[in-house]
Each structure stands twice: as C-alpha cells, then as structure tokens.
C-alpha cells in the first residue's frame, strides 16, 4: 500500500518535469582546435578563411584538396556549371569531392565549401529553353553530400549549420532545375521531395536529427514539405536567407 501511495505521488509529480529547449549543436562547447563559425566558409567571403582547412585535411588528400581549392576559388568568367563539370577540371573536382566526403568531418566541410563556392562562380540557370541540366547537376552534388553526412552532421558542432545550409542549397538548386516555361517539372519535385523525406524522416515517419535541427533553427522551413504545390518553397526561402542572391545567375 505504501508503494501505491508513492506511485500516486509520483504520478502527480512527473507532470511537473519541464522540457528543455534543445541546445543547438553549434552552441555546444567546442574542441580547442575546432574551426569556429563554419558558415563563413560557405559565405561570400569564404576565400578569406578557406586556407584554414588546409591543415585539417588529411595528408593523403591534401594535395588534391589544394589543387581543387585553388581551381575553384580562382575560377573566373562564370562558366556554365555543366560544361565545367564535364571538363577535366570538373572531373577532378568530382573525384576530390568524393574523396573528401568519405573523410573526416573537417573534410566533409571542405567538400561542402568547394560545392558552394562552385555554385557561386558558375552559371546554372535554366536558360531560354529551360532545359539546362546544370542546376540538376548541382543538386546531385549536394544530395551526395547530404546522403553521406546528414545523419552525422545534424548533431555535430562543426557541421550542423552547414548541414542545414546544404539542405537549403539542395532545395534551391532543385527549384531552379524544376522551372519550366509553364508550371514546374513535377517529376523532379517529386524526386526531390522523396529524397528529402529520406533525410528528414525516420522509418516511423518521425523527424530525424537533421529535421529537428532545421526546425529548431528555422521553424518555418519545413512547413510546406507535405504539400503538393511547391513543397520546397520553405527550404528555398531559407536558401535565400542563407545564400542571398545565389540563384545560378553568377552575378
């Protein structure tokens, strides 16, 4: 009987247990040598800090990283993204991205830095006939990064913000790729929504760590994902905030 009374008191008491607002991964204590403000490496002035990554890339990949970094950050003339990727430098770039994605979290950040900078320095708009696959190529590059890192990155103090940015950039690239003269390419939108659903929901349909991180930082970004019309609009709006003016025009 005493145990029952105790249980009744517990049943009343547990209702007062407060919920804690989640601590954003980037706000957790950082290691001494950890990179600070990683989003600066994805911003307009990434060139000012990108050399900091040189020491964090493993020895075996450093040479290819240095070469590719110089090529991307010194790229001039706004070439078309698809054409550049099909050239020898682009092929080397894709190989380097693959290597970096398989590496450490600093190397994953380096891969995303290269992808974002390439998106800034190349043109990937749809063109007059709206059949330029460049935006789709860009979205695939980002999707490859998300597939490899979205689970781990969402709770990582270094990569959580870049993971949000990558998701937004994926949505932006898909939005541009899906534009048609009238309406949108619904099959492309459906494929993108299915891919994002894999990254943002677990097997039980509940939010993954990445989705929770995005919602905690940007509550409105995922609201329209289940809607049939323009499901990527929320993430696209987030991309506009994180990467102002990054729309494939290469201004």
């Amino acid at each position: 009987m005493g145990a029952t009374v105790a249980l009744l008191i517990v049943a009343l008491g547990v209702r007062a247990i407060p919920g804690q607002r989640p601590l954003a991964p980037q706000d957790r204590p950082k290691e001494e040598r950890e990179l600070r403000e990683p989003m600066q490496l994805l911003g307009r002035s990434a060139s000012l800090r990108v050399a900091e990554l040189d020491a964090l890339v493993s020895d075996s990949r450093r040479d290819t990283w240095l070469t590719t970094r110089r090529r991307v950050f010194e790229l001039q003339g706004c070439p078309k993204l698809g054409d550049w990727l099909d050239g020898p430098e682009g092929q080397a770039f894709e190989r380097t991205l693959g290597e970096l994605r398989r590496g450490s979290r600093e190397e994953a950040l380096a891969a995303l830095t290269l992808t974002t900078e390439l998106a800034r320095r190349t043109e990937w708009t749809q063109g007059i006939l709206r059949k330029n696959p460049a935006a789709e190529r860009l979205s695939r590059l980002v999707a490859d990064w998300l597939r490899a890192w979205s689970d781990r990155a969402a709770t990582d103090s270094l990569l959580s913000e870049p993971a949000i940015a990558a998701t937004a950039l994926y949505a932006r690239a898909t939005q541009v790729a899906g534009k048609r003269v009238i309406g949108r390419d619904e099959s492309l939108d459906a494929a993108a929504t299915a891919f994002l659903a894999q990254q943002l929901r677990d097997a039980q349909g509940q939010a993954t760590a990445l989705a929770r991180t995005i919602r905690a930082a940007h509550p409105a970004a995922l609201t329209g994902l289940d809607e049939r019309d323009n499901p990527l609009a929320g993430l696209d709006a987030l991309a506009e905030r994180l990467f102002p003016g990054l729309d494939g025009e290469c201004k």
Partner: protein
Amino acid sequence: MNSAPTSLAARQLALACALIALGGVLLGLQIDGNGDLVGTGFTSLGVGAVVALGALIFAAWKEPQLPRDPLTTLSALSGFFGLAFLVSGVLAPGGGWMFFEVLVLLFVLSRAATRREPLTRPAIALLAVMLLFRLWISYQGSQHRWQLMSLDVPVLSSLPFEFLAPIQSVQLGEFTPRELGFPPAGLDFAPSLALWAAGFALCVTGLAWRTHASIEHENDRIHDTIHELPPALAQLVERVLPEQQWVELGLHGLSERRLRKRLEELLVSRIAARRELERALQSPDLLASTNPGGFPGEIYRALTAGAEGPERNA
C-alpha cells in the same frame, strides 16, 4: 475460513490501486525531441480532476460512502485520481475540442457513476475514441501538420496554377502548436504513443478491477460482521439476506454501527414478511379466495376439503 478470502479481496484492491497509480505515471509523461521524459503538465490533470469530481459528486449524492480504513481510503483516492488521470489522458490538449469533450465526458461519467460503476462499457468506448482522437492530433502535430485533415477540392486541385493554391484544398479542424502543449523540443510520437496507450490500459483495467475488488472487500466485511453471531444463527441470517443482494440492500459503504442496525432492520422485516407469508399459506381462507364459485367451485371445495366433508355431514 474467513481470513483467506478477506485478505485476497484486500490484496486485489491494493493491486488495482497500484495499477491505477502506474497508469497515472505513464499518462503523465511524454518523450520529447531530445529523447527526454517530460511531464504533460497540470492543466489537463486539473480539467480531468474537475470532471472526476463532478462524476463522483453525482454518485455520492444519493448514497454517500466514506472510507473507513487505510485501504478503503486509498481505494477512494485511487478511484478519484484514476478517473482524473484517464480523463486528462484522453482530452484533446486544448482549444474548443477540449471544452466539448469535457461536457460529453461529464455527462457520460456522471450517469455511469450513479450506477455504482465509474466506468461502464459505453464510457470506456467513449474514452477510447477520445484517446484515438488525441493521438491523431498529436501525430499530426508531430508531423508539423496543424489540422485534422486536408481535403482536395475536386477539379480545382488538378489545375497547375500556383495562384489557385489557397483554394485547391480545404483544411478541416485546424489547431495551433500552442494548443497542443508540446514540449519545447517537440514530441517524439512513437514512444509517447506507447506510454499513453499503456497508461490508458492500466488505468481502465485498474478502475474496473477496483470496482470488482471493492465489492468483494465490502462483502468480506459484512460477512465478518454476520459471523460474529453463533454459526447456526449466522447461516440463517445469510440465507435470509443472501450475499448477492447486499449491494442492492444498501449494506455496502455503511459504518459498522449503521451496518449492524441495517442488518437488524432487514432481518426483522424479512422474518416478519416470511412469517406473514407462511401464516397466509397455511390459512384455508387462502384457497377459498381462489374458488371460482358455482358448480366447479363446489367440486373444487369438495376436493380440497374432501377429507372433512362426509364426516361433517354424518
């Protein structure tokens, strides 16, 4: 002979109360997005307590029963809190839905309580439906969908024009994140669903079992009181006042003094009624009153009083 069944009923009652308390613990918890246990708050419990209090007041209005010992005190407390936990566990978390549900539950549970049964089958079915409704709302909220459902408008929804988006579908039963009272880190629906469903089942089972065990426990007490008499006399009392009628005769819940007085009154009135019946059955007037009269009546009288007739004539 008496001690074993008495202790069994008492043990059953204590266990039923423990089930209710355990169910209350589970119904008071949820798992948030951080994976932590978070309380469901006191607002819904307060509303549940008001509904439970209303139902129990209706029940106690006719036949007030007061607990007499620690076990019956615990049972009464568990009955009240069990109903409060159950109601708070199934109510929609807020808004107009909750107000409507409170009214319906108050009506149904009050009717059930007046029958000395806090949970009738229709009441359990209603509570289960409300729990499903709450779970559905919570599921929608956990998916960041803030309506019961969204219906596409025929024809309009098939047109590929963005400017028609606001009228291409109809949102039914919209609610806000604030109404749901989710934890700050959001709700982890699957484990919370398991907690609430288990808590609901434990509370319902505990309340039903408690009702049954309370009756048994009271029967044991009345039985003990009757068996203070000499064994032959006690058996006679139990034949005149059979155990199956003790609830209807209002013997449950009485204090010891009132129980004895009530037993005396019932015994006196029943014995008197039996004696009166026996006297009536033995009286020849009883048969005469059923005589239809005339020729058949004379034959009937001759047959029933046949032994005395010829001798009297002679």
